[in-house]
């Protein structure tokens, strides 16, 4: 233990603790900008500087480790002046358009300027002028707002191991750029959107589809159909001011009806459908000696990552489309047929916790209905703003169910939103497929929770099925490298691009807080426990669609509408 004084108060902390973390234990939150819990500190901003007795200069508290007898002042006049000057300098080179910036409720620079008492920007002069990077279908970068904190570079490199963003040049020319400044749309960007979560300002955001959706809703010649991803019900309330983890499935359906959507379905339905197809595929591979391990395919960020970095593993990846795309293909075929609507008039909108879904919807493979299967993808944040814009008092809305045809869902569909959920849901159905009986133990605890890589063995009537789950692409690499080396012991692997799974997707409420992501996941597991059906194959709407339309899992119609192919993209 190391004993030191912080602001005159003596505390003891473990050796190797940084001053910033030691201060936290003394109930002091040192202001900071480039530091973010969960990322390696890189001390770019210098906002977290503190005064250490006997040292000629101030020290960055995010990296400086405590030493015995150290005397630290986190709030002296000298420190406060330095912080103000630094924030003024950052503001002087920042595109200040706060009223129309989409981060004005969550901007850390704005908050710092207010809290540090910055009253004017004394450094008038030139500001950098850059073009926006609008090459990606999912993510837009505005370097004019960038404060060069390097968080996006770190999350992309250290956490996701994708590394498409880096700092280039020096001096005033310094900026965050992609390889040869090709733009995010032309490099290996997986569009996972974690960079949006860590950006302290409005320099990275999703490509919004709000205006297009408003236009479709206002067009009487169009029939709007909407689906909402499993994770939405655990985060939409949070974005609209309810406590984190509030389950809002019913309010969400109600709000969408009030926004004017003609039909409100639920992606949980097609999550159940994915399970039927994917479990059948797994059983087939195991029985017929197909390529194993089979790897899940619901996370479009993971799929693009695989196509760039592990294209040789394509045979391992399930051919099942993601729930969003299965739904999209059915909305303009099955639903249009049943409802007697010209599919050309159907506008299919999905509400997703995800930025990569925007990319996925535009893939050329995703036109099985003869049209673009999913027309517009909105993130949690975009839908929340539409609800606010429409003046809907979300908290007071009654709970409403989704429309039945493609809106009933099981608990297995709901837990898709948390890491390990797809695995658990698939095993519940695989058990039935293999044994013809229902599993006695429906909860598969070892694949839940926030460990980066989780593995377990499930006994299905004497068949020992080895499964593993990874979330976050850096963790995924650990499992994938094993597969590539031919040393993977697993039969089935679930991979989600984002840390925490979809509850931590790039479209979720801003923040890189794993605790919050865990709480959202718990919300999904609690809904699972409460639902009348907890296995995908028990969902009455699923039973009905196979009876009326698809006939059988992996059948001809399924093959056409619900399965897809992948592209060997390779490295850029």
């Amino acid at each position: 233990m190391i004993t030191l004084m912080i602001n005159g108060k003596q505390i003891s902390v473990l050796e190797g603790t940084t001053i910033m973390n030691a201060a936290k234990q003394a109930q002091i939150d040192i202001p900071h900008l480039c530091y973010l819990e969960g990322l390696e500190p890189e001390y770019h901003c210098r906002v977290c500087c503190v005064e250490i007795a006997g040292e000629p200069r101030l020290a960055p508290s995010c990296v400086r480790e405590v030493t015995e007898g150290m005397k630290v002042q986190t709030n002296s006049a000298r420190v406060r002046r330095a912080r103000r000057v630094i924030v003024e300098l950052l503001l002087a080179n920042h595109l200040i358009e706060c009223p129309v910036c989409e981060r004005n409720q969550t901007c850390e620079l704005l908050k710092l300027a207010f809290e540090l008492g910055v009253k004017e920007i004394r450094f008038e002069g030139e500001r950098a002028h850059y073009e926006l990077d609008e090459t990606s279908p999912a993510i837009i970068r505005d370097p004019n707002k960038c404060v060069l904190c390097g968080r996006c570079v770190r999350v992309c490199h250290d956490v996701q191991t994708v590394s498409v963003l880096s700092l280039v040049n020096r001096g005033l020319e310094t900026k965050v750029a992609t390889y040869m400044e090709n733009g995010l749309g032309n490099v290996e960007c997986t569009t996972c959107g974690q960079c949006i979560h860590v950006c302290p300002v409005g320099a990275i955001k999703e490509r919004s589809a709000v205006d297009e959706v408003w236009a479709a809703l206002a067009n009487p010649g169009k029939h709007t159909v909407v689906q909402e991803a499993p994770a939405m019900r655990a985060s939409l309330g949070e974005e609209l001011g309810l406590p984190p983890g509030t389950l809002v499935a019913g309010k969400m359906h109600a709000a969408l009806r009030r926004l004017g959507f003609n039909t409100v379905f639920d992606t949980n339905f097609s999550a159940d459908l994915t399970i039927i197809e994917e479990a059948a595929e797994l059983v087939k591979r195991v029985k017929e000696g197909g390529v194993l391990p089979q790897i899940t395919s619901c996370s479009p960020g993971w799929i693009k990552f695989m196509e760039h970095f592990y294209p040789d593993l394509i045979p391992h990846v399930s051919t099942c489309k993601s729930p969003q795309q299965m739904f999209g293909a059915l909305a303009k075929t099955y639903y249009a047929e049943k409802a007697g609507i010209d599919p050309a008039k159907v506008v299919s909108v999905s509400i997703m916790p995800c930025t990569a879904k925007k990319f996925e919807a535009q893939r050329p493979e995703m036109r099985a209905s003869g049209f673009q299967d999913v027309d517009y993808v909105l993130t949690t944040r975009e839908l929340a703003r539409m609800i606010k814009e429409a003046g809907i008092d979300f908290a007071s809305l009654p709970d409403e169910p989704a429309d039945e045809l493609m809106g009933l869902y099981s608990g297995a569909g709901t837990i898709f939103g948390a890491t390990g959920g797809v695995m658990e849901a698939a095993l519940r159905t695989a058990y039935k497929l293999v044994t013809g009986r229902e599993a006695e133990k429906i909860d598969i605890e070892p694949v839940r929770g926030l460990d980066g890589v989780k593995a377990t063995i499930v006994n299905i009537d004497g068949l020992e099925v080895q499964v593993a789950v990874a979330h976050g692409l850096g963790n995924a690499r650990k499992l994938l490298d094993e597969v590539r080396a031919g040393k993977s012991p697993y039969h089935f692997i679930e991979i989600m691009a984002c840390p925490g799974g979809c509850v931590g997707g790039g479209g979720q409420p801003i923040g890189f807080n794993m605790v919050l992501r865990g709480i959202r996941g718990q919300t999904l597991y609690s809904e699972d426990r409460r639902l009348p059906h907890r296995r995908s194959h028990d969902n009455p709407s699923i039973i009905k669609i196979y009876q009326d339309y698809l006939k059988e899992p992996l059948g001809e119609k399924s093959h056409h509408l619900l399965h897809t192919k992948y592209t060997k993209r390779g490295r850029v």
Partner: protein
Amino acid sequence: MEKLLTRNVGKADSADIEVYLAGGGYQALKKALGMKSGDVIEEVKKSRLVGRGGAVFPTGLKWELTRKISTEQRVSPWMPREEPPSGWRAASKFIVCNADEGEPGTFKDRILLLNDPHMLLEALAIAGYAIGTTQGFIYIRGEYYREIEALEKALKQAKAKGYLGNNILGSGFSFDLMLYRGAGSYVCGEETALIESMEGNRGCPDCRPPFPAQRGFMGRPTVINNVETLCNIPSIMVNGGEWYSRIGSPDSPGPKLFCLSGHVNKPGVYELPMNITLGELIQNYGGGVKGEFKAALPGGVSSSLLTDLKVKLDYKSVAKAGSMLGSGAVIVLNKDTSIIDVAKNTIDFFTGESCAKCSVCREGTRRAGEMLARFANSGGRAKDIDLLLELGEVMYDTACCGLGQASMNVTTSAIKLFRGEFEQRLAK
């Protein structure tokens, strides 16, 4: 005074190993290898030699710290490499010679590299032996083409003659050297940025502590010494630390290479003891000021302006006068020079060379440049004078490396010494 560092400069083929050997070259290495490595360090400590790159850290102490430290493997998050690339020895610690001479007004190391590369190689082998490593590096400024050529030739000769390589002079000690070329970044002369650059990363300085002597190249303890510092080592080994410590000023023993430039009649590199005054240097060696003396920068553009010609050019006296001797780049300014132009010129240099990691340096240098440009165009704003001083203090307080910390020194000293010039240039 007898010349130590530049004794071979001017000799025909002075860079050739035969000429170096004829002048007693590599005798110091032979002597050192016959001693215990701890005793080699003792001699260097006795000499009271301090780093000539500007940081003035005692060389012997630096070596001792590195020699004693236990090896700790650091896996860089940017480039996790367990094994070193081929071509050099995997060692548990390293010695690096900083030959990335980039400070404006500094041109002393190139004289040594060009004329006496073997003196440096010999010194590095001694240093390697002393701290207990088998691998050293020379990180050289990329634009020093002729110097690189000279070093490459010298390395080849030294290896052929057995002064580098396996089992040097039959002592059982093996040591190799490898040349790293910089890519044109000024800040890579800063030791932590230099390490980043060597590791293949973006050349940005790191926080200290930990110092390179604790955690340096590849995460291992690394001594980084300036060319001039190292070139003192062979003389110390041959003549003893005692002898060396009596040269020149008692506070700052040993010879120093002064790079005299600016408004003097005879600019150039002068090897002198550190007991002469600024005035003597300019008058007796530089042939006097061209025009009338106004001020001088004793340690290049990172130091503060001096107007007192009687200041002794040793580390302590210059610091006492409010500046720093740094690398010994003395830039003289005459009365025809606008101090505002000098300040703007230096800050523009730092603006361009900031690695941009620290917000305060990246943005601060540029805003200072803009304020100074307004003064230069007679459009200065009164409040900017104090703002420049405040900015200078904050940059000193919060920037990560010497570049940011010292970048405002010329400007703030200019305001303190020549405030009138700024006030004359206020917007009407």
